[in-house]
């Protein structure tokens, strides 16, 4: 019995740690998306594509000069690409309105995925955790906790703190922050210069790139990764409330936890019913429904949560602006 509870505790703690590192990674993505959206009113559909590029750039540069320089170079490269995108793409379509901007980033996501196919092929690339971080940090009961996961959290938290300091302690940060709550005022003060836009866009993309560098080797680096993570990040942003950084943070952790736990839980209603002494015949029409495990529902849960949120509170967890 004690062994049973021990293993449950172990499962719980390990999954919680994994949730935290995944949630922080989500926040790195959603914070950039939120900043760009709040400043420019543009929902960057290609945001997850920049995340993917971060992973691929890190893989490529890492192959020549190692992981550590790549950790810095890849996000910078992605940031530069973001700046170019803003300067020569978004700024051109800006006059056609937000729908055109959104469609532009949508088309860009399409093109980036194809370019990745073109350059790195369709199969996953061998982007690995660096050897210097490929060891067990500690052992929890029987689970060996990888050092890289802890490193991911460290970088995420470091990023979080620098972002906070940047936003609250620097002039540029003030402008950006003010535009979250009072976009009209900032505009009226003459701060709404294209350069700030370009910088915010580049910065947001660089954050996504950094998330890619960290997430790419933790999970998998393949052309489908942008698609897989992109819509989750959208859910996070809608759930947290569009334009709210705090909302994005809380939502990242909630969605991260939800996803990590639901994937790991192998219960089904059938099992629950069985435990309380009800059995469902395999011939029953509902057998299929009862036998769905929680882990099978995992892909649906975040979206379900978002829909529920929209019904109960259309502006999201901490959103202030209606549209």
């Amino acid at each position, binding site marked *: 019995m004690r062994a049973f509870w021990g293993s449950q505790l172990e499962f719980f703690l390990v999954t919680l740690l994994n949730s935290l590192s995944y949630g922080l990674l989500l926040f790195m993505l959603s914070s950039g998306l939120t900043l760009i*959206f709040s400043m420019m*009113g543009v*929902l960057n559909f290609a945001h997850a594509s920049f995340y993917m590029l971060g992973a691929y750039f890190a893989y490529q540069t890492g192959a020549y000069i190692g992981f550590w320089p790549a950790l810095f170079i890849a996000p910078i490269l992605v940031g530069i690409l973001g700046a170019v995108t803003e300067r020569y*793409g978004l700024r*051109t*379509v800006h006059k*056609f309105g*937000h*729908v*055109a901007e*959104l*469609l*532009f980033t*949508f*088309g*860009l996501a*399409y*093109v980036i*995925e*194809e*370019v990745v*196919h*073109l*350059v790195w*092929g369709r199969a996953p690339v061998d982007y690995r955790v660096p050897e210097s971080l490929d060891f067990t940090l500690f052992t929890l009961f029987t689970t060996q906790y990888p050092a890289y996961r802890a490193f991911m959290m460290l970088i995420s938290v470091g990023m979080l703190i620098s972002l906070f300091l940047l936003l609250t302690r620097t002039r540029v940060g003030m402008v950006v922050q003010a535009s979250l709550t009072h976009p009209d005022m900032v505009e009226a003060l003459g701060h709404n210069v294209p350069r700030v836009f370009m910088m915010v866009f580049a910065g947001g993309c660089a954050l996504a790139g950094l998330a890619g560098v960290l997430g790419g080797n933790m999970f998998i680096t393949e052309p489908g990764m942008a*698609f897989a993570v992109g*819509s989750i990040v*959208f*859910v996070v*942003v*809608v759930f947290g409330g*569009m334009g709210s950084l705090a909302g994005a943070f809380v939502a990242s952790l909630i969605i991260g936890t939800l996803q990590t736990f639901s994937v790991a839980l192998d219960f089904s209603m059938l099992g629950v019913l069985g435990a309380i002494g009800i059995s469902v015949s395999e011939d029953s029409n509902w057998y*299929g*429904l009862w036998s*769905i495990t929680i882990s*099978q*529902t995992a*892909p*649906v849960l975040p*979206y*379900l949560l*978002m*829909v529920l949120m*929209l*019904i109960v509170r*259309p502006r999201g967890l901490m959103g202030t602006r209606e*549209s």
Partner: protein
Amino acid sequence: MTPVFHKTRLIFWSVVAIFFVMLPFGFSGGFALSMLSQMGIAIIFALSYNMLLGQTGLLSFGHAVYFGLGAFMTAHVINWVGEDRIWWPITFMPLVGGLTGMLFGLVLGFVTTRRAGTPFAMISLGIAEMVAASALMFTTFFGGEGGIATDRTAGGTMFGISYGPQIQVFYLIAGWCLVGMIGMFAVTQTPLGRMANAVRDNPERAKFVGYNPTRVRWLMMTLAGFFAGMAGALATINYEIVTAETLGLVASGNVVLMAFIGGIGHFWGPIVGAVFVTWLQSALSTYTQAWLLYFGLLFLIIILFSPGGMANLVTLHKPAWHARLMKRLLPSYALAAATGALMLTGFVAVIELLYSHGGSGDMVSLFGLRVDAGSAVTWVAAVGLFVVGIVLFRWALKYVRRAWEEITPQLQSSGVV
């Protein structure tokens, strides 16, 4: 003036109908026929999408949900017909798909249309993801990875029509395509259709003339769901299989591209887009692996330089055409086309060479030529062609601009602008 209007429209639709009837005579052969069938389905789907984007200003990234659910329901109903559990003619299956799409439009639309603009776009995407993920969960209805197969001849032969031969399926699609086109055009001419435009342009003002914008959006969503489901039903009959991909995000994205490339500002735009994109997909995909890239770039170019799509290029030239000034534009257009072709050739050559991942001695087929992808000469030629093409094309564009500047005063004075 109203009756005259009516008559010309009647003539117009009759001409379209005759055109549809004649099509298989012009494009015979299995490939052409199946492509025409695909185009018919795409036209209905793209038009139904534009009821949202073009007419109501709702940028949806999840329209394939309604198409797909209509398709799945139809597959089941056809199978039930095959098992003699119910009776319903195959000819009217699109109504089954349509009603399914409408029902889901009503239910899901209630959630999505509470917001407009960018939040709507995101929510539509989220709902689409939810449905797509559910599709893999509820295997009884969606058939899991394999999807649901069906047999379109299940209804037996009626008046000599079994829907076995593709030609019969084509005429079924063409008939419903015509019905769909007329139906959707008719919606634009109703109070709801007009108020959808009003809500698109200025939702706040729509409130102050007595309309609830949320209700207008919801109703348009429901109607668009109907026509999307109708298209889905036709797809089921055409392919005899429906998989979860049918309602996935790629399919939803595809219809965005079709509508936008064709032009969302005109009723006819998505039709042009559906035909063009369907053709492009099957034509390009047989020649090159990079077709999705070309496709994406085409989309970006249209957004950057002609956000009204292909239809807008036509309307742009209407005044010049009426003022008989087209001949003044054509020489510069010819120049731009020639240099543009050069640039495009160079670009395609570069991309194809990149895609080949060629080492030395790897032969790549480029425009019918066998070239060595590993040789520097090939690369220099391709890149050179591209760069020279860019320079020349930009030079040619100057003439286009000048030609327009020259005719603009005349257009204004002739009063057509």
